[in-house]
């Protein structure tokens, strides 16, 4: 894992000291809110419905056990004993007090973390495949490049006042687990004739105008990465609209300019700045890569694991849903579900964070990941240790066997916390999970991704949910629109709206009708919801969702 250089350390400490002074000056009245607001946003501090909210970056979703333990400590000391992991691999604290923020930032700096550029019209936390470095299907670990981009984009003088925020995601595998096509820039590590390079997507994004990223370069040689990314940002910085917030993201710039024309402009800018990159970036990258060397994997006897599987059906069920193939047969990737039925998606208590940190330290080479699906990953686990890990997780309510199932729901904070939200998301997720647990249908329904956003900004990725739910304010009442058929993988698809929305107390029954229809319609248990939808289209689901009588009455 990456360890801060002296430069990183000094920079982060200096920013904390600066912000400490800014907070003091705000409190003593030397700074007005208008003056203070851009400063606090630069340091990840929002003001939400009930309190301040501090958003902390978890670069490319990677944490050491020490960092995870510290996140739990901060939650206990300055917040209400929990933290919320987000779809952009950040953690949010929902209840900090203004006076405490500088101390929280110092505590983060103690473990080489910060909240810089987690807000504002800057390049945000660079996200990555949460299975990076462990997945069997990977061409290369994307995190060294993500770290290079973090260093390059942090406080980059040219890109501190972009037309709008800018999000980059990277994957090193053909199976996209990082939703790269829904990012301003998506990077995919690819191999061509034995040479490793990047496929570059630009102009993806969800929100009010969802767009799928377009390929701007099919193969970018490794050495050209940083100048090419800088060229994209540079073109966007000049061309992106500043007259209308809703048209300011690069997806609109690409859409209005056309991919071919904008490609030409990027190539022109690239030719201009390429000579300035004399190779220092590659030296730095090589240094970073050395720090991401794989751990010294232990050879592990799988016998205890196999015995436990046979003996304990609860353990077996957890293995069946929560394990993913590791590049080594005697290891596994463990997904720890933060989606216990009825709990808040993505929340972990201080105690749970401490336990996960201990498990990572003891069994899993000291590494954890946060997935954009709001779960925690132990990327490298010897199979022999799985029974012990499962037992320890069970004691703190973290052994839910539901990864990829109906209750493994992405939900944004929604109107329970967020000042931008138009409706609640969390209770909808809680009730869907609880309902299908009661019905005992979760495993029968199988692979399904439900994603819920509490406003059009789509932090809950509803557009790419197999079932997407969007909460709106319709004449002062919460109303929920449903989309079907979305997909956030390498086949990224924007879901299609079913029709009129549903009131708060109608949305869970509506989801139930869709899923009962699916169980009736599927060819057999091996056909997933998404496959059935793709085979049959919207019509049968619409018929189930809006019964004839209701439609006749409405006519």
């Amino acid at each position, binding site marked *: 894992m990456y360890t801060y250089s002296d430069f990183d350390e000094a920079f982060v400490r200096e920013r904390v000291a600066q912000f400490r002074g800014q907070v003091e000056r*705000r*409190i003593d*009245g030397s700074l*007005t*809110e208008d003056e203070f607001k851009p400063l606090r946003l630069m340091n990840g501090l929002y*003001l*939400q*419905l*009930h*309190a*301040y909210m501090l958003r902390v970056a978890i670069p490319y979703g990677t944490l050491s056990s020490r960092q995870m333990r510290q996140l739990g400590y901060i939650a206990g000391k300055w917040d*209400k004993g929990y933290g919320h992991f987000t779809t952009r691999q950040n953690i949010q604290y*929902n*209840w*900090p*007090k*203004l*006076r405490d923020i500088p101390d929280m930032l110092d505590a983060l700096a103690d473990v080489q973390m910060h909240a810089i550029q987690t807000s504002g019209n800057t390049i945000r936390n660079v996200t990555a495949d949460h299975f990076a470095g462990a997945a069997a299907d990977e061409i290369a670990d994307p995190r060294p490049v993500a770290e290079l981009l973090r260093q390059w984009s942090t406080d980059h003088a040219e890109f501190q006042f972009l037309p709008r925020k800018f999000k980059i995601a990277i994957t090193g595998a053909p199976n996209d687990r990082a939703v790269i096509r829904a990012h301003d820039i998506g990077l995919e590590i690819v191999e061509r004739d034995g040479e490793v390079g990047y496929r570059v997507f630009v102009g993806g994004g969800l929100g009010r105008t969802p767009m799928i990223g377009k390929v701007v370069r099919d193969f970018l040689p490794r050495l050209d990465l940083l100048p090419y990314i800088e060229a994209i940002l540079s073109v966007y910085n000049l061309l992106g609209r500043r007259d209308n917030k809703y048209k300011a993201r690069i997806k609109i710039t690409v859409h209005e300019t056309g991919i071919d024309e904008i490609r030409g402009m990027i190539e022109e800018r690239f030719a201009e700045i390429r000579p300035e990159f004399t190779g220092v970036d590659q030296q730095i990258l090589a240094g970073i890569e050395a720090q991401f060397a794989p751990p010294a994997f232990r050879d592990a006897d799988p016998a205890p694991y196999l015995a436990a599987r046979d003996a304990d059906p609860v353990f077996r069920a957890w293995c069946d849903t929560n394990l993913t193939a590791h590049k080594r047969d005697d290891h596994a990737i463990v997904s720890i579900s933060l989606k216990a039925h009825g709990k*808040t998606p993505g929340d972990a208590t201080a105690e749970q964070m401490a336990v996960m940190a201990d498990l990572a330290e003891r069994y899993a080479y000291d590494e954890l990941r946060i997935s954009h699906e709001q779960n925690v990953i132990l990327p490298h686990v010897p199979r022999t240790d799985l029974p012990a890990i499962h037992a320890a997780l069970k004691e703190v309510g973290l052994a839910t066997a539901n990864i990829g199932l109906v209750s493994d729901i992405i939900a944004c904070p929604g*109107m*329970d*916390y967020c000042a931008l939200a138009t409706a*609640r998301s*969390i*209770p909808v997720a*809680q009730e869907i999970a609880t309902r299908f647990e009661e019905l005992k249908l979760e495993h029968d329904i199988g692979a399904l991704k439900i994603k819920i956003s509490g406003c059009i900004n789509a932090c809950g990725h509803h557009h790419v949910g197999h079932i997407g739910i969007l909460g709106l*304010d319709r004449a*002062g*009442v*919460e109303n929920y629109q449903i989309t079907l058929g979305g997909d956030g993988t390498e086949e990224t698809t924007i879901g299609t709206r079913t029709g009129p929305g549903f009131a708060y107390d109608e949305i869970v029954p509506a989801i139930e009708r869709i899923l009962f229809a699916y169980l009736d319609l599927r060819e057999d248990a091996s056909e997933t919801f998404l496959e059935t939808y793709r085979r049959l289209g919207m019509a049968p689901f619409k018929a189930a969702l809006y019964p004839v009588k209701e439609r006749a009455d409405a006519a």
Partner: protein
Amino acid sequence: MSRTFTPKVVTANALLEGDAVWLTAADTWTRDMGEAELIEDPGHAELRLLHAQGETETVVGAYLADAKAGPTGPVPTHFREAFRTRGPSNYAHGKQEGA
């Protein structure tokens, strides 16, 4: 003809704690919406908002929110404002914590 004026309260977030507060007729800020001043006149609403926006050492982001008279003072008419008087629905945190 102008639209009928909906009664308002002036609300904001406290600078230090960040939680919801409401302006009283006595120019103080309260954490109990029932103690807020219910404003029935548009001109007076503008004046009260201007006053609140000047209180930058105490509160942040003052605005006028729709309200109506309840049995013990103003109550919210929109669900967003109702949440601000209580707290989130997933934990008993915020104002409902001490209630």
